[in-house]
């Protein structure tokens, strides 16, 4: 029993930090620091820099061109990237569809897709949820009907993150309506530029466009794009889920957010005019959030260290998912509070021709303006990837209830 990082792991972390310091372009760095919106090209640029260094696929085995890192190294890499505010890793290709292609795809599919995922030449989207199939995913209805060498796909996917940046989408589709619901599901890879596909934006409460609906109207998909066997999609989806959980804890993100919160509360005034960080009550609320983050980090390390058997790990993943999402929400809540009345101000609402928003004072930084939208955005964390309530059902079941 020893939960500290080994000298080799510490050295690895220093190497990652050093690389990011030397290779994250300064304009991207400033953009990250200022909390500005990332463009598609920003993500692609950073991904290609990582790829050229051999770090394009941190979660992959070496035989497929990955780094061959273990889960702790991956965690350290993710954390350093988050702390440096680099564009985040886009998981849909690298961590979701790629493991499925490696495990169940044909050699042709592997040779075609895997290299293109690493460079983000293919930007993937995840076509799982539907209007009638959220937590109860097996209720999905989007149909794929065999017609010669093609499947004809009809239906609608929803909550599709960054589908407006994507050129490919992997979908769970219904190829049969007989037998058990799960047995009629297949896993299909679809070129999003195929005629009949329409991506429609969903505008969320943070005022951003991150999510989409994806509509399929008689979309013809070559049968060669089926993964594995027809009707086995549910099995592949469950396999994918174990990889989707690679970074459910979001420790690095929360660590960066906590740092920003402390920084904000040292700049913004409290009611006595001194920095808010001198306010004992506020300081203790931030302290509690930090305690939750400390506990989370160790919980996550235990998950990464692969402690226990499969059942214990699945249980641990659910515990980490719940704790991790709550920490993110707690920090984002406090970050809004730190801004005082200015937590209400939407800087994006500036009307052309009126007096421009000036920096409020020396204590104001433009990244502060994103804290309230981030708070709205973070409500997603207890909903996506299996809502907290679904996780609690899983936990109760695995405890024997």
């Amino acid at each position, binding site marked *: 029993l020893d939960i500290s990082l080994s000298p080799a792991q510490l050295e690895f972390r220093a190497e990652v930090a050093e690389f990011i310091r030397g290779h994250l372009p300064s304009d991207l760095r400033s953009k990250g620091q200022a909390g500005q919106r990332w463009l598609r090209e920003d993500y692609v640029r950073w991904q290609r820099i990582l790829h050229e260094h051999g770090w394009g696929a941190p979660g992959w085995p070496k035989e497929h061109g990955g780094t061959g890192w273990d889960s702790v190294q991956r965690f350290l890499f993710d954390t350093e990237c988050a702390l440096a505010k680099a564009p985040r890793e886009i998981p849909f290709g690298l961590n979701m569809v790629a493991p499925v292609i490696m495990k169940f795809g044909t050699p042709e599919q592997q040779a075609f897709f895997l290299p293109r995922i690493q460079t983000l030449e293919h930007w993937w989207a995840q076509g799982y949820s539907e209007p009638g199939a959220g937590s109860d995913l097996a209720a999905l209805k989007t149909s794929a009907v065999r017609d010669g060498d093609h499947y004809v796909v009809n239906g609608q996917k929803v909550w599709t993150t960054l589908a407006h940046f994507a050129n490919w989408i992997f979908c769970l589709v219904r190829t049969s309506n007989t037998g058990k619901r799960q047995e009629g599901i297949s896993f299909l890879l679809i070129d999003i530029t195929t005629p009949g596909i329409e991506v429609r934006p969903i505008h969320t409460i943070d005022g951003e466009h991150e999510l989409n609906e994806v509509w399929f109207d008689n979309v013809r998909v070559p049968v060669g794009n089926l993964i594995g066997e027809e009707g086995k999609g549910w099995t592949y989806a469950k396999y994918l889920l174990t990889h989707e959980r690679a970074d459910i804890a979001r420790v690095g993100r929360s660590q960066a957010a906590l740092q920003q919160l402390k920084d904000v509360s040292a700049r913004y005034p409290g009611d006595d005019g001194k920095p808010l960080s001198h306010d004992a009550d506020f300081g203790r609320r931030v302290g509690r959030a930090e*305690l939750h983050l400390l506990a989370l980090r160790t919980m996550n390390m235990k998950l990464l260290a692969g402690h226990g058997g499969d059942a214990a790990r699945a249980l641990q993943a659910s515990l980490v998912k719940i704790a991790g999402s709550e920490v993110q929400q707690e920090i984002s809540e406090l970050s809004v509070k730190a801004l005082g009345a200015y937590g209400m101000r939407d800087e994006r609402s500036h009307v052309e021709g009126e007096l421009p928003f000036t920096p409020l004072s020396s204590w104001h930084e433009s990244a502060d303006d994103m804290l309230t939208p981030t708070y709205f955005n973070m409500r997603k964390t207890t909903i996506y990837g299996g809502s907290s309530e679904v996780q609690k059902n899983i936990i109760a079941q695995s405890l024997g209830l």
Partner: protein
Amino acid sequence: MDFDYTEEQTALQDSLRRFASSGYGFTRRNELLRKRRWCREAWKVYADIGLLALPFPVEAGGLGGSSYDVMAAMEVLGESLMLEPFVPTVLLAGTVLSTATSQQHMELVERIAAGAATYALAHQEPHRRHAIKPVDTHAVRVPGGWRLDGRKAVVLGAPDAEGVIVSARLSDDIDGDVGLFLVDRATAGLRLHSYRLHDGQLAADVWLEGVVVADSAQIQTNAPSMAVVQSALDRGVVALCSGAVGSMQALLHQTVSYLQQRKQFGQPLGQFQALRHRVADMAVQVEQARSMALLAASHAGSTNPALCTRMASAAKALISELAREVGQTAVQLHGGMGLTEELIVGHHFRYLSVFESMLGDAGFHLTQFVESPAREEWQHAA
């Protein structure tokens, strides 16, 4: 990085559990509670399996065990609700004595390790909440020794202790030097007002009125007195946290079994989603507590004392809150039965409630954590 207990740690836990299930059942424990005693046979077992020597350095006659070893043992002591003064004697008084440079005090570590005597650390005072610096208790020079006056509050393990280690200021200056004195139980002027805590552990208020001790009673230590006291408290706090984790885990387990067995409205309680979700909340809280206790244990051997204190406080602050939530939920889910002395659940709840206030509550430790200038290794600047 390895989250599994070693074979030795597992073996230690196994022997403690064997003893707990054979020699320390619910009935036996209730008998001890009625008599306001702890179990002498248990103490002998602890000595025999090396538990009382575990954390002491080898050169002091101990086993040189790590904070993880103590954690492993404390988990079982907590899950079995053992009443013996292990933390007061071995981790509080024992840590002070093991840093002594005065021969007569160093030797006491071996007496503790052999199970021959218990000692207590009297640091807390009635006119301060949890603060550890002596204000009231003071020592005045007399020919050949010192005269001690003052009062100490809720001294854990004092009623049966052979001697009490008293912290006292050495001058009128409240921020001045502090001395540590080992006061023999039989010394004139030392009065103990003994009582049971709500979980059955023993403690006392200690009054010192004109207590005269020889020079040799002052414990010479290899670090300033308050640093030694702080280090003892840090170790005690980390150990208590692991005990609480053991108790919380036991409550989770008990609650799951109860919900499996108890039927209402024609089905087991475990079928009701409202109750299932509360059990899931307990599971998250127990795991948070366990992680925090581990984290504190991993820093307990650090060469940076400020960091040890910071992480001990982090653990105590968070686990005190989690212990309350888990304890209250377990009682709630047991319904009326949770309120009775018949079930072990209520006893765990009392243990955890006492734990919350022991050696500083959540509020005290949160302040200590927030105000600490030390930083963990992983919080390096990006």
